[in-house]
């Protein structure tokens, strides 16, 4: 997931030993990857920047709980994912939409219709990418995050589960649901190919 070396652990030890500036090296080393995943989850540049800052702040506050046998990059990456989920109101949205997803397949279409400006219009204007982004944003936060981590960040089921705080199997199921929904919603695009 991330590329880390010994320097991360040395920096963490230095920070815990009172050298606050050592944390700057960690921030500079991991900001780009955190911004990337934060943007993919939030879909918003400003939110992603806020998520990066918040993740590093939370990481600093919890640094004493960081276990040296794990990688700092992985650890702060998970914190960033949590921050991103918090940012988009994961809890509320996830709970309500999950119930809706399981209970009434028809409601999926309603959700898409509510948020989309209309597939035909988007297709006509050639904004295929925008339609895909729209379809992605129509997923629940958990599904979207699981899909982003699997499809774009190449994370394993275990890594996704750890980042989301759910079992690996539940993370896989979230990916399956996301793929199924995306294929369903982007089916009209197949005609244009």
């Amino acid at each position, binding site marked *: 997931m991330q590329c880390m070396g010994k320097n991360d652990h040395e920096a963490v030890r230095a*920070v*815990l*030993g*009172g*050298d*606050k500036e050592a*944390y*700057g090296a960690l*921030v*500079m*080393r*991991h*900001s*780009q990857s955190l*911004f*990337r995943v934060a*943007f*993919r989850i939030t879909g918003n*540049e400003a939110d*992603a*920047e806020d998520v*990066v*800052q918040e993740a*590093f*702040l939370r990481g*600093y506050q919890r*640094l*004493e709980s960081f276990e040296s046998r794990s990688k700092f990059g992985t650890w702060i990456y998970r914190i960033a994912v949590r921050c991103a989920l918090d940012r988009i109101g994961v809890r509320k949205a996830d709970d309500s939409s999950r119930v809706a997803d399981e209970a009434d397949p028809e409601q999926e279409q309603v959700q898409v219709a509510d948020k989309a400006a209309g597939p035909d219009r988007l297709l006509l204007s050639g904004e295929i*990418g925008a339609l*895909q*982004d729209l379809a*992605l944003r129509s997923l629940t936060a958990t599904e979207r995050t699981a899909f982003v981590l*699997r*499809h*774009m960040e190449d994370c*394993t*089921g275990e890594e996704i589960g750890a980042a989301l705080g759910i079992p690996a199997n539940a993370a*896989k199921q979230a*990916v*399956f649901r996301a*793929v*199924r929904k*995306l*294929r369903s919603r*982007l089916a009209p*695009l*197949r005609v244009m*190919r």
Partner: protein
Amino acid sequence: MKHLNEEELIEVYYKSGTVDAGQHLEACAECAEAYAALRSDLNEMKFAAPPTRSAAYGERVWQSIAPLLPAYEAPRRSWLSAGLWRGLSYATACALLVVGAFFAGSLWEHNRSKTTAGGNPPQAPEHVAPPQQRIVVVVLSDHLDRSERLLVELKHADAGSEEMVSPLRDEARSLLAANRICRQNAAKIDDPALATALDHLDHLLGELANQPGGVNAATITRLQDEMNADGLLFQVRVLRSRIPEQQAAKAAQSKEGEI
């Protein structure tokens, strides 16, 4: 043949499918077609790439959060661990002291015994005597005890009974050696009463043990008379009764010396 479901196909796409699923795809045209459609859909999903950030982005993030971060305090040793270390140090020092003292004592004792064996006995200081004195007192106490019993038996012995006389003679022989040691010690410590009593006892024991031709009735009677005339049994009893007092007095002296 059981076909792969969509979840299994998705796992194959993300390279987390089973070997069996891969083999099935090669063998099953229907599943291969379904997988091709899935792969096409997923490959076509080109989401907006995240905006690029300059190399200075990390520095900018750090500058924005640095003022909000309090520095961690350098870890200090807790009083518990400090106390533990101090205690361990003291314990180690004490252990070394004890070992050193033991070693020094052993060396000193070794040198002292060498010097003594070399025929140049040092003048024993007075305070060295107590252990030996204690042993002598114990030996003397035991000796007087046995002697008293012998004298009592002798006093009441039937001169004509060989059964009674024979054990008396054996016991007298056994007591002779101890009596000589006690006499020597009595001479050293300048105790005239003890020395006199032990002299009388020595004479009687010698007579009893070494009578030529064995102990006969006449000898027994004579010894009984001598014993009664000297009041030997009484002297032995008195001496025996003094021993606890002597021990107490010596113990007190020893304590005073230590103080």
